[in-house]
Structures are given as structure tokens and as C-alpha cells.
């Protein structure tokens, strides 16, 4: 067999031979490109290089869940909602791998909500990408657990009456050790957040605002379109006061546990919240709750990143302790109870 030299610093080395089948114009294309470019960038430095053979993308069902087919790595396209559980087993059996989990809002928050919160609270070493388009795409346009109240869809002709989940609040509530938000129109921002999530030891949740141009077009336009960004996107930077606006004239304060947007001039710079990745979860929660609609200034970037014991390491250290006096012996096991000889 001849070795085919592949240059992992180039995007095509991370691109599989499968035809991508998302609708033209779908936000998923941008996310896929960012993921491929990110791996190419990591390959430029031997210290950050991850190999395709050591990388696995695990997904459930939905448009987003087709993602693994398009990465030239190992992959599993599994069952609706179950990807965090399946990925957990893979990560436990193979702590040496980089395991990514990809799913949409229906996959992760509706049918798979239980698996998601448990993967997060256990802090298994998984990087979970939640493509939030606030709609069911693959089943052709029903409201999702992140759709706004009043949403008119095929299954809610009179408008949805379900209050939605805020994925960031949910993840913080599950005591996730890494929580971030990015969006499909900014490749640089995506790559930066993906890199941090990937480097984090433990479970990371990245919410990606993703446009479904067929069933929910423009859901995030008021926030993520280039012209709106300055006034509507709040960039969270560790160690910096939270400020935004074209004139950098707005900021965020937390009063009685509640975050609010203020004019900097009204309160003074010192009153602004200084963002800390390792702040108390109540602070992360307050920031997450700042925006629960599509019209308010919305925080992006890393909400939370804290060090905590990682699950696969804890499991492996229990195994190592049990094997301290050598590996198990089958004969010893069989004779470990009371025995008698005839």
C-alpha cells in the first residue's frame, strides 16, 4: 500500500468524499467550513494538531446531525436525541479520542434533553455543538423547544403556546463547566469558540445560532446581520467589563441577581460587570437570561469555563487503583467465593 501524503493544514484534508445535502443557503454550511478550517489551523502547530483518526463526530437525527458524514474523520450518525449518551460511552471506552457531539435544538433539547443535561453534569470530555435554528427542519417546519411563543408553524397554526428553553441557561443550570454561544455568520468567531471548547477538559456546550433559510429564515437577522451586530451583540471577554455598542457606550450591570443593559454614562464604568469565565453560576445564568427574545442585545462568546474533575479521568483512576496489585485473574475470580473440592 502506498502512503498518500495528506496535508492536514489544508481544509480538503478534513473534507469527506460525501456530497453535502443541506439546502442551498443553509447556515450549516458555514459551521461545517469553520470546523474544517479550525482543524486545519490546529494542524499548523504540532502542539495543537489533532489527527483525523483520533477524532469522532457523533450526532443524533435532524439536519445538523448529517454533519459527521462531511468530516473526513470517524463518525456516528445515531438516534434522535441519543447522541450525548452514545458519545459518553465512546468517550469512556476511549478517553484518548476527541469526541464531538452535533445536534439541533429538537435533537438536543426535546427528545434528547435528558441525555444532554446528564452529559453536562457528569463533565464527560465531550464537545457538544447545539445548532439552534429554533425550528424542526428535517421534518419540514414544526415549532421546536427553542421557538418563541406565538410561533405559527404547521403544527401550531394558531401560534405556539410553549415557552422556549434558553440553551445557555439550561446548560448553566446543569452545572456545565464550559458554556458558549456563537453564530453561523462569523467564521472567525466560530473558530475561536470551537478551539476553546475543544481545549476545555470536560463537557463543553456551544450554542450556535444557525439560520434555517427554508423554514425559519432570518430568525437571528436582528442580532447577527453585519449591520446589527454592533448594537445587538455583546461580546463576552474574560477579565473585561461587559461593554458594547457602536460607540462602546452600553454595558451590563447585575442588580439583585438580574442583568440589565445600561448606558455607561449613566452608571459609570466601575459599575459594569467584569466578566469572569469562572464566576459563580448565578452570574452566568443572569447573563444568559439577559436575552430571551430575538430583539434584545445578546451575549456571545464564552459564558463560563471552569476547571472541574473530568469523568473519564475519574473512571480511569478508579480502574488504575483497582489494578495497583496487578490485573485480575480469572481463576482467582471463579474461586473467590467459598469453594469445596470433591
Amino acid at each position, binding site marked *: 500500500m502506498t502512503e498518500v501524503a495528506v496535508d492536514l493544514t489544508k481544509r480538503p484534508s478534513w473534507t469527506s468524499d460525501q456530497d453535502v445535502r443541506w439546502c442551498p443557503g443553509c447556515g450549516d454550511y458555514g459551521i461545517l467550513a469553520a470546523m474544517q478550517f479550525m482543524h486545519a489551523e490546529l494542524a499548523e502547530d504540532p502542539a495543537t494538531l489533532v489527527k483525523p483518526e483520533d477524532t*469522532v463526530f457523533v450526532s443524533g437525527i435532524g439536519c445538523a446531525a448529517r454533519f459527521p458524514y462531511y468530516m473526513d474523520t470517524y463518525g456516528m450518525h445515531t438516534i434522535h436525541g441519543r447522541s450525548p449518551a452514545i458519545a*459518553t460511552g465512546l468517550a469512556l471506552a476511549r478517553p484518548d479520542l476527541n469526541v464531538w457531539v452535533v445536534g439541533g435544538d429538537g435533537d438536543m433539547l426535546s427528545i434528547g434533553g435528558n441525555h444532554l443535561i446528564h452529559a453536562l453534569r457528569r463533565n464527560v470530555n465531550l464537545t457538544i455543538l447545539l445548532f439552534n435554528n429554533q425550528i424542526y427542519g428535517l421534518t419540514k417546519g414544526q415549532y421546536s423547544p427553542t421557538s418563541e411563543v406565538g410561533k405559527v408553524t404547521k403544527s401550531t397554526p394558531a401560534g405556539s403556546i410553549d415557552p422556549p428553553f434558553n440553551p445557555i441557561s439550561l446548560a448553566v443550570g446543569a452545572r456545565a463547566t464550559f458554556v458558549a454561544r456563537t453564530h453561523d455568520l462569523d467564521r472567525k468567531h466560530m473558530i475561536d469558540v470551537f478551539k476553546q471548547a475543544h481545549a476545555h477538559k470536560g463537557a463543553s456546550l456551544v450554542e450556535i445560532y444557525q439560520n434555517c433559510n427554508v423554514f425559519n429564515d432570518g430568525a437571528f437577522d436582528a442580532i447577527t446581520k453585519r449591520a446589527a451586530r454592533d448594537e445587538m451583540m455583546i461580546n463576552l471577554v474574560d477579565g473585561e467589563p461587559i461593554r458594547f455598542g457602536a460607540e462602546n457606550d452600553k454595558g451590563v450591570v447585575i442588580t439583585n441577581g438580574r442583568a440589565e443593559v445600561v448606558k455607561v454614562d449613566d452608571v459609570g464604568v466601575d459599575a459594569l460587570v467584569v466578566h469572569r469565565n469562572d464566576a459563580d453560576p448565578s452570574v452566568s445564568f443572569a447573563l444568559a437570561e439577559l436575552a430571551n427574545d430575538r430583539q434584545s442585545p445578546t451575549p456571545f462568546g464564552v459564558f463560563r469555563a471552569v476547571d472541574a474533575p473530568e469523568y473519564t479521568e475519574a473512571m480511569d483512576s478508579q480502574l488504575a487503583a483497582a489494578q495497583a496489585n496487578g490485573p485480575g485473574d480469572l481463576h482467582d475470580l471463579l474461586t473467590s467465593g467459598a469453594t469445596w473440592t470433591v
Partner: protein
Amino acid sequence: MQLTGDRFTSTSALVGNDIATLPEFPAEIRAPQGTLAGVSAFQVHISDHDIHTPGDISDVLVAMNPAALKSQLIRLKGGGTILLNSDAFDERNLEKCGYEADPRLDGSLDGYTVHEIAMNKLTVEATADLDVKKRDAERSKNFFALGVVSWMYTRPLEPTIEWVESKFASRPAVVSANVSALKAGHAYGETTEMFANQYVVEAAPAKPGTYTNITGNTATAWGMIAAGQLSGLPVFLGSYPITPASDILHELSRHKNFGVKTFQAEDEIAGAGAALGAAFGGALAFTTTSGPGIALKGETIGLALSMELPLVIIDVQRGGPSTGLPTKTEASDLMMAMYGRHGESPMPVVAANSPSDCFFAAIEACRLALKYRTPVMLLTDGYLATGAEPWRLPDVADLPDISVEFTTAPNATDDEGNPTFLSFMRDEDTLARPWAIPGTPGLEHRLGGLEKADGTGNVSYDPGNHELMTQLREAKVNGIAADIPLVEVDGDGDGDVLLVGWGGTLGSITSAVNRMRDEGMKVDRIHLTHIHPFAANLGDILRSYRRVLVPELNRGQLVRLLRAEFLVDATPLSKVQGLPFTGEEIVNATKALLEVTA
């Protein structure tokens, strides 16, 4: 009472008796004491010869309260001996279980030999010198009862004393109370003139070897550990607690020195899912469950089937449907194992037939899963799982090698002549696809639940391909028939009737057949370990008998498969009481069949 029964069993096994047990306990953890629903019973059969069941009826009944007497008296033979705790026969307890009059006084125990023993009082007296409260002392009364029965049956006390000392090592007061009660019970048997005779049950003649006493759940767990050693793969268990399967998880969790990873998931689905993820990573992966849990695993089993990854699913069957009878046995998940998935989804089904056979059945399920890259269902049941028997330990060197090779290099060439990896290119003999695990450079591939193109494994909606893949998956499983032992007939091969069993009924059927042969009847018997696919010679065997009787602890599931597959006129014998067959039930049914078809 479970603990007391367990100690009596272990000691009997140690002195070389053959044993069979039937533990019976309520599904509730602290079921109201003194009520019929709260009775915890333990039936043990000890013998100086080979036995197969816990026995149809008992010689001795120990009743710690009126409820126990009321619920268990039907299991005592006429003229049998009753030891009852007279301290518990007060008005309140009698009323609790619905006795209108004291059964000791109204003649309902006439015909039995009744020994009334004030067990609470005697236990408190025996522990009087110790620093224990009266209420705590009374808790040791089961050990007093065990002492009495140990005297009756000449069992040594030492193994139980040693056991108490190690079990309660951190609570010396409990050790001394239990040991004093045990000894006092024994002394009571010796000194009172209550008992006319003492029984000596000699060791059963057994094949030479080293024996241990084992339950089905422990044997299953050990079988999975052994399969890991025999395959050279790390064992991974994804599970969720459920009665009566949890003990497999508990046992596995104690043996991390074998590199076994156990994961208690958030639910049944995640338990199965995590196992499947581990299988993709190259582990020998399995999941355990019972009752409704098996329904929740269906979608993951379907995915394993579609991805063609090895996965062992262990179903400790219990009474259903729904929550049903959590602590009682039944064999009613056979159709579920066969067909309980959507789509055309055949998978191998293996059934264990005795507590110790769970060990070998687990290894066999793993062998098939690994070799054929398929989910395999292993069926045990509540009776096997919690019942115990002496087990002649196998020589580890005699266990089969079940190792398989991972694929580490491309297995094909593409149109341009470059080496490539086709994830669904099958082995010609087994039809198994290659198993290449993450970490292997150059073999990156994606598996999914969407239909895959033959060979490449790419997503395919092609009509002809789907039919081909459906047939290939089926042919792969059917082909296993050539890789499993033929069924062996127990008998001369020309009996008037053939009894066909599967799973945990082996003991009941064997003892029934032995009884019928003693009566001069010509009865043959087979017992199935592999239910899907069937052994290659099964059809010929069935067709060579005029009468076929299929005893099952369900409403006739195997019998339907046999009739459908082989067009034989097999007759069902059904029982769904949460209890094993008695030998008598099988004998009577066989005689009835012979009569109507004479």
C-alpha cells in the same frame, strides 16, 4: 429471611449437598411486615443426589409470623414439620394477615408436626449479657431460627459465624448478637426434646472438581468478565438499575481490576446507547435490563443491527406486561427478543438454562456478537438470576478463544487504483463486515442508521440495495446455524413424546422426565440454548416424534416459533404465576397429552 436462606444454602453447598433454591421476596423494599404482601420466603432443596429444582413441596416450614404460615402452608407436604415463632402469633399479627382464629388452636394445623418456639424471647435471653438493646436483639431472631434448623439438619455453624464476622466487621455488637442467637438456636435444638430426629444429608456424589455456590446474576457477570479475557477486549457495561438485573451491574462494578468499566446511565436508553458508543470504540460492550427496560432499548438495538456493531443485551426476564411482577420469574420476552424492533431486524437470541449456565451463555453471546458484528440478546430470568446451585468450576484453560481481529489496513482499491476502506465489504464466510476502530489511521469512516450501500457503506436510498442489505443482514444471522452445536436428544430417540424446553425450565423438565422414566414411560427431551437461529438439526428432531410438548413460563411463545418454522403439531404447556414449573405439573401435562393422542 433471604439472608438466612442464603446462609443455609451456602453451608449445605460447602458440605457437598446438591442444592437448588427459590428466593421469593416482595417488590417493595420495606413491605409492611406481618401482612401477606410483606412475606419474604426462601425455599431451599438440599440433597445427597443430583437434583434439578427447588422442589415441589417442602418437608419443613419455618414461619416467623402468621402471614408466613398462611402464605406458605400450601407448599408444605402433609405431615410436614412446622417451626413457628410463637412470639409473633398475637392478635394483631393474626388480624393483619386475615386469620379469623388462631390457626394453632382451631385445628387447621392438624396433620402437621408443629413446634412452637418463642424465638423473640429466647433470642433476647441469649443476648442478655451483651450490650444490645432489646429491639436490636430481636432482630437476630432469624439467626436463632437458622441455629435450630442447622441442628435439625446437622449443618456446621462455623461457615456462618465466619461470614457474620466479616460481613458486620465494623459493627461488633451486631456480630456478637447474631452469633449468640445462632448458637442459642443450635443449643435449643440439641437440649429440648422437641425434635424426635435429626437429619443427616450426606454429600451428593459429584464429579471430582472444585465447586462453588453461584447465582445466575453472578455467573452472568463473571461470564462477561471471562469473555473480556477470552476476547482480549476491555469490557464495558452501560446499565440502569432495575430488578432483578441490577446485581449484574453491582457484581461487575466490584471487578475493576479486570479493566471492566461500568457506567450507570441516566436511563435504560442511555445505558444501551453508551454501550453502543463503547462498541464503536472497540470495547466488548453490553447492557443489562429486565421487564419494561427491554422495550426502551429497542431503538439502540436497531441501530446496532444497522451499524453491524457487536453489542450484547442481557434481559433478566420477569413477569410482565408493564411493571408486572418485578421480583417474580417469567419467560415471556422471547417474542420481544425475536421481533421487538421496527423494520426487518433479525438478531441472534441465546438463552441460559441454569444459574451456572449463565456463565457459559454469556460467553457464547459475546462470541456471536464479536464474530458476526451483531447485537445478541441473552435471555436469563428472575429464577435463574436469584437462584443458586453448586457449580463445578471450569478450567480456565478450557474456555474458548473468542478473539477477533480489528481491521487495520485498507481492504479494497478505488477506481484510480488507490487503497481504500470499504466499511461494508463482508467476510465471505461469516458475512460480517470489517470492524475498524477510531485511532486507526486511513480507515476513517462514518456509520449511521440510514441504509448503507453494500460495500462502501455510503448512505443509499436505492431500492434494490435496500432489499439486498436486508437479505444480507438476515443471511448473516441465519448462517450462525452452522456455527452452533447440534441439539442433543436426552433419551433413546424413539420416545412416545418429546419435551422441548428453553431457558430456566431445564431443572423442572429434567426432574419431571426422570420421574416419568422411573414409572416406565418413554419420554425424550431436548433443551434449546440457541433460539435464533435454531440449531440445524432441530426440524428433523421435531418431525421424528408423534407428540411434542413445549413447557414454557409464558403463554406459548417458543411453541409458536416451532410451529411456524417447522410446521409441527407441537402442544404448549403454559404457566404464568411468577413461579417455576413443579415436576408434577409437567408430568400431568405429559400424561394428558399421551392420553388424548393415544
